Structure formats: structure tokens, C-alpha cells
């Protein structure tokens, strides 16, 4: 099964994926996937994915998880959970997608053209900075750095929202905002210790 696990990185990703997934509650259910396709058929965005949810599991079994991590698949998951609630094998596929996102970010393997990792990053930055996600700031940053075309696409809507007071320009910080960074730092340290 693992003849495809040629590169050290592929081996490492496979190992980490197995370790993490088997650590999840009922993570071992991934073993009993019937490849029935209910997940992919239910997925609102699978038609765009390099690997549909079903193929993600097939690829994992073929020792190709590294290919999946580098694919666009995981950045197209909208976390709608259709696959998870419909899976006849009880596999928590949405959680698998999160796991793959984590691997992609951890090993910096996200496809460069994909905007989602950046969006994720700005979201977290914003939360760390203010304690809450300041939508306007996040979007502004995203547009400036990632997608120049957006402001032009959205100017009409933007104006309407602004007029309606639905786009406040200044952010309010929470008192305990530094707590969030501390929490992340603590968990990062713990993880480091574990390895």
C-alpha cells in the first residue's frame, strides 16, 4: 500500500496524519470507508476539488496523503458537514479536512495561488489583535494583499453596507485580548514538548 510513500516528507505527512486521525474520537472509522461516494455527492464544492472527499480517503489508503495536502481540496471545504452526517461509515470527514488544513499550514504546503490560507491567517491575526474578528479590517487586508479585484467587484455592496452602518471602520478591543495569544502560546509549547 505504501509503495507511493517515496519521499521522506510523504512518509512524515502520512505518519502525522495517521497519528492525529487515530487520536480523534472514532477516528479509526476511516478504516471502514466503503468508497460509496455519498460524501462527494453531497459536497457543495467537490466539483472544484482536485480530490473529492471520497478520493481523499482513497488517496490516503494509497499512501498519497502528501498529494492531498498540497491539493486545492481542503481549501474548498466550507465546513457544511453534509459529508459527516451522511457518511454510512460514521467517518467525521469534516474533521479530516481540518486535519489536512493543519498539516498544510504546519508544513507550509498550501498551494500558493489559493487565497484561503491567507484568509485564515488574517482572520486569526485580527482575532489575536482585538480579541474579536474585525470583519472590515480583515477584508481590507485581504483585498489589499491578496485580491485587488475585490474592491471593484464589491464597491456597490460595500457602499450599501457602509451606509447601513454594517461596516464599522474602527475595531473595539476586548480587555482580555492578550489572553488569546497566551492560550495559543501555551498550546504551542505543549505540542513542542510532546515532540
Amino acid at each position, binding site marked *: 500500500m505504501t509503495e507511493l510513500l517515496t519521499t521522506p516528507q510523504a512518509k512524515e505527512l502520512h505518519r502525522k496524519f495517521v497519528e492525529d486521525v487515530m*487520536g480523534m*474520537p472514532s477516528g479509526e472509522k476511516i478504516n471502514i470507508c466503503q468508497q460509496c461516494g455519498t460524501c462527494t455527492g453531497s459536497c*457543495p*464544492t467537490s466539483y*472544484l476539488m482536485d480530490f473529492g472527499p471520497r478520493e481523499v480517503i482513497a488517496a490516503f489508503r494509497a499512501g498519497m496523503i502528501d498529494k492531498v495536502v498540497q491539493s486545492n481540496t481542503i481549501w*474548498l471545504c*466550507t*465546513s*457544511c*458537514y*453534509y459529508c*459527516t*452526517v*451522511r457518511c454510512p461509515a460514521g467517518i*467525521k470527514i*469534516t474533521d479530516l479536512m*481540518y*486535519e489536512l*488544513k*493543519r498539516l498544510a*499550514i504546519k508544513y507550509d504546503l498550501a498551494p500558493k495561488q489559493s*487565497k*484561503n*490560507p491567507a*484568509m*485564515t491567517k488574517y*482572520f*486569526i491575526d485580527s*482575532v489575536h489583535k482585538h*480579541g*474579536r*474578528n*474585525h*470583519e*472590515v479590517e480583515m*477584508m481590507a487586508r485581504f483585498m489589499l494583499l491578496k485580491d485587488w479585484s475585490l474592491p471593484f*467587484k464589491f464597491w*456597490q*455592496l460595500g457602499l*450599501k*453596507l457602509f451606509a*447601513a*452602518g*454594517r*461596516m464599522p471602520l474602527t475595531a*473595539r478591543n*476586548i*480587555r*482580555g*485580548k492578550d*489572553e*488569546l495569544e*497566551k*492560550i*495559543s*502560546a*501555551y*498550546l504551542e509549547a*505543549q*505540542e513542542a514538548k510532546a515532540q
Partner: protein
Amino acid sequence: MKYLYYPGCSAEATGKAYDASSRAMMDKLGVELVELDDWNCCGATSYFSVRELDSFAIAARNLAIAQEMGDDELCVICNACYTTLAKTNRYMAEDPHVFEAVQGALGAVGRSYDGNVKVRHVVDILINDIGVEAIAERVTRRLTGLRVAPYYGCQFSRPMGSFDDVQVPTTMDRLFEAMGADVITEFDAKTDCCGGMMMLTREDAALRLCHELLVAARQYRADVIVAACPLCEMNLEGYQPRVNKAYGTDFNIPVMYFTQLAGLALGADPKQLAIDKQVVSCASVLAAIPA
């Protein structure tokens, strides 16, 4: 009645109207919403992408505060916040490893959480605590004849389905039926995905999903779509022009937060409900229901 209340980040921006209308509606029902002190972002789906434990710990900070405030229930209006917070509880209960880690992380900032604060979606509270009968009694402006398409979105009852059916939720249907509306119970797309955050990163994909939803709403002759999530509402309402542009359609279907429409039925002032803050005009809706 009194509930500890978690507005969520959108409530301060695009989702202002959801926050305002929730408070106004609850007020009409004699329920006080006490805002959670110094709450932080639930982490939404983004944190899951960094370290799963981060998302749980970040979310748990809010639950810890609720515990500190001596409450064992937390009312949430945003589907994403609801799922993230509830999922945190579930995983803390299911997985001792998660429980430990979260405790440790909270400990690092001088907090602690035992996992006993029940996360309640506002719809859950309306249906199961207040009850449709009690609500029906307080209706002053019946929604007679109004074709309402309740749009639950993804994370309303998925994945947990703790207070409503995972695949075919009906709680909002029951709510608006009690208010005399002509509810489209068979609304096929009621839990389909609106595209969520993808509207910014893969607009084509998100527009396609919104288009499918709007087609379904039109097929069922909906006068209004009511949503229970800021992102759903934003995408379905705000992006209708973009959908029309992309698909050569002429959709102009009013989309409201369900709390706005419910608020109207309960006699709240449209201003309080921030109905004028909608992008697609709700005039047709207001006109359709006798004051």
C-alpha cells in the same frame, strides 16, 4: 426570563441587525439577554486549521467566563459560533486529552472551565424553553399569507443535531407557523450551503450555491427568506446582484434574519429591528403583513 448572551463578531459589523433584532424580539417575549462579559471570537472554522486545540481553548474562554458569571447556559445567535462552542463542549466531554489541554490553556490565563455550560441556539430557546404556544399568544401582527422560506444553513443542526433534526430541521418552520405565516415546510434547500467565507476566496463557487438556493426559493414562490446565521444572510441578501450578474437572473427576494420577521410579528418597531438596514428592500414584506 434571563439568558446569558453571546452576540458573536458579526454582530458588531455586517450582522448588526441580527444582534439588534434578537434583543428586540426577546424583549417582546419578556426575555432579557445579558451580554457575556468581555467575550472573544469563537474562533469560527479558521482556528481549526491551525491547531484543533487552539480553537477549543479559544472558544472555551467564553464558556469559562459564563461559568465565572455563574450561569450554566449561553444563548448564541450565529450558527458558526453555535457549532464551534457546542463542538468544544462535545469534544471536551468525549476526549479526555482535549479536556486536559483546554484546562491547561485556560489555567495559563487564570481561568478554568468544567464543561458544564450548555450552549443554546436562540431558536432552541424559543421552541423548547418559551414554546410556540406562548409565542403565538404574544403575536400582535400575524404573518397571514406570507410565504416564508426558512433557511437554516449548514451549521444550524449539523453535525450535532442536538435540538433539531440533523438533515431536515423544522424548528423555525414551527415558529413561523405559530405566527400565522404560510411556511414553505418542503423548502428543499433549507440546509444547503451558502458558500460561507468562500464568497471572498472563491466567489464563483459561492455564487453558484447562492444561485441554487435562490432558484429553490423562487420555485417554492417564497415572499421572504429568513436566515439564522449572519454569513448566510450576508451571502444570500448582499450578493443577489452579483448572482444576477453571473447567471443573468433577476432575483430580488427579500432576505431577513429570522429574528427580524419574528420581531415584526411580535409587534417590535421595524427601526429597532434594523429592517431598514437590509440591502435588499423588505418593503414588500412589510406591505404584505397588516400592521
